[in-house]
């Protein structure tokens, strides 16, 4: 069975709320019923059928084609299945998702994977601000799962992160890992200013020496971490080509708060 595919017909004149287009909601619906679902965010009604050309049947595998940065909430609350986005996506992609996989070939907007509890998001290009951070009305950011970002991340990456792993292939913006409760950020090409501001128990792993380190982080020197070996092995098992070894400089902080978090800077 081929993937249930939604091809955007033309640039819509309003932002779209695509949160209904998840497997749990679409399973068992006929083509007509799917076409009748509303995706508008203004008072002007817009249905799936008006905005998208639909192909395929398999509701466990959903594809979006030609979407842009105004297509919000793709895969929000996802509880299983797979979503592939050929193109860009708007805000709240995969927000509060629990299980399943979302792959995006382009870039995504703000709050990507915000307060997600599990599953996997892979964005090939850039993400906006607050990826993996706390969604609207939530007290905690991402609570589990894995976000991998091929390009750059905006500011406040993983703000109030509770658990889970966010990997950034490019650079992260300011305040990466701000107010982290726990969890892990893996930053391949560093971050902007104030990384780890207010970090309680989280880990920020830098593959390159960061340019700015908060003065509230205290140096614990260099040693080998089996934890890094474990993480590297797991990432490689996921099919990622990454190698960072086990020797790292550890700085503990943020001493302005609990101070049990860390920066591991690969040596």
């Amino acid at each position: 069975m081929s993937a249930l595919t939604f091809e955007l017909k033309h640039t819509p004149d309003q932002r779209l709320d695509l949160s209904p287009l998840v497997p749990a909601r679409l399973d068992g619906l006929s083509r007509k019923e799917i076409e009748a679902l509303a995706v508008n965010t203004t008072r002007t009604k817009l249905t799936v059928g008006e905005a998208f050309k639909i192909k395929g049947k398999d509701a466990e595998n959903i594809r979006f084609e030609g979407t842009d940065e105004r297509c919000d909430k793709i895969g929000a609350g996802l509880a299983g299945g797979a979503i592939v986005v050929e193109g860009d996506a708007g805000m709240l992609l995969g927000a509060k998702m629990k299980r399943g996989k979302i792959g995006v070939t382009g870039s995504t907007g703000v709050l990507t994977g915000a307060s997600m509890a599990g599953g996997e998001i892979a964005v090939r290009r850039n993400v906006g601000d607050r990826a993996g951070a706390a969604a609207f009305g939530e007290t905690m950011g991402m609570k589990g799962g894995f976000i991998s970002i091929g390009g750059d991340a905006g500011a406040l990456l993983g703000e109030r992160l509770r658990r889970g792993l966010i990997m950034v292939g490019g650079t992260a913006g300011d305040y990466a890992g701000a107010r982290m409760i726990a969890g892990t950020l893996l930053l391949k090409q560093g971050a902007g200013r104030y990384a780890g501001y207010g970090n309680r128990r989280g880990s920020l792993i830098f593959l390159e020496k960061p340019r700015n380190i908060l003065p509230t982080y205290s140096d614990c020197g260099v040693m080998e971490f089996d934890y890094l070996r474990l993480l590297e092995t797991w990432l490689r098992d996921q099919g990622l080509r990454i190698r960072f070894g086990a020797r790292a400089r550890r700085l503990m902080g943020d001493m302005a708060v609990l101070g049990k978090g860390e920066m591991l800077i690969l040596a």
Partner: protein
Amino acid sequence: MPELKVKGVTIVETFAEAFPMVGTRVIITAPTLEWAMISARTMTGFATSVIACGAEAGIERTLSKKETPDGRPGVAVLLFTMDADKLQKQLRNRVGQCVLTSPGSACYAGLEGEKKLKLGASLRFFGDGWQMSKVIGGRRYWRIPVMGGEFVCEDKTGLTKKAVGGGNLLVLGKSHAAVLAACTRAVKAMSEMPDVITPFPGGIVRSGSKVGSQYKGQIASTNDAYCPGLKGAVKSALPLNIEAVLEIVIDGLTADAIHAAMHAGIHAIAKGGAREGVTHITAGNYGGNLGPHHFHLKEIVG
């Protein structure tokens, strides 16, 4: 009925009587295989019999760098006891005293299991507040700061209630050397089988026991029926020409694993044939009323 023989070695028509146990597997890794082995050997030391050791444990096999969670050489260890509470206590004490203390070691779950046992979940307290929990791929690990760096230990490991203990083979022969050589071969063959261990020294017991004794408080005593030196004095199970009897005890995560290991063991023992000096392969049982698992040698050989 014709006697069953393999290469001239008589397979006595009897069965090994075995008991249900609870078991678990942990994986120990270290910077080198040598150090993983040291840690594993220490952890499985003094674990021959639940009668006085609290647990039965052994090294199942070594693991290559590709088979371990952290990409370092490792060793898989099996641990068995009679109930889950005892297993939990033994696991905590043994990993805490023998793996945590071993240079460069890390300890991971080796079994999914229907229930879980605490591993790092209890050892983390050694970290005195400096321990860190990390979840990778849905599994929780503890990083406990120690003088050698960090001890990484998975939060929990699995437990199986389908484990079986006390599968056994008794090997009778015309010289001690012949029986020892045959048994050594059998233990080696069994060590390559999955899901089983032979907990006794080098896998072999030279002092099989019977239940009870003439002395008060002695719950087990020498199996006089199989002592070659008592052939004329007791109701012996041995022909007059037998000079030595050695036993191999097998614990496994499943009854099938023990069955397979006994099969490999019998054929390894009989490999030297009657000419080597091994005359009989038999097994120990208590009449069949005590243990629910009966491993009939005749079926196993086939």
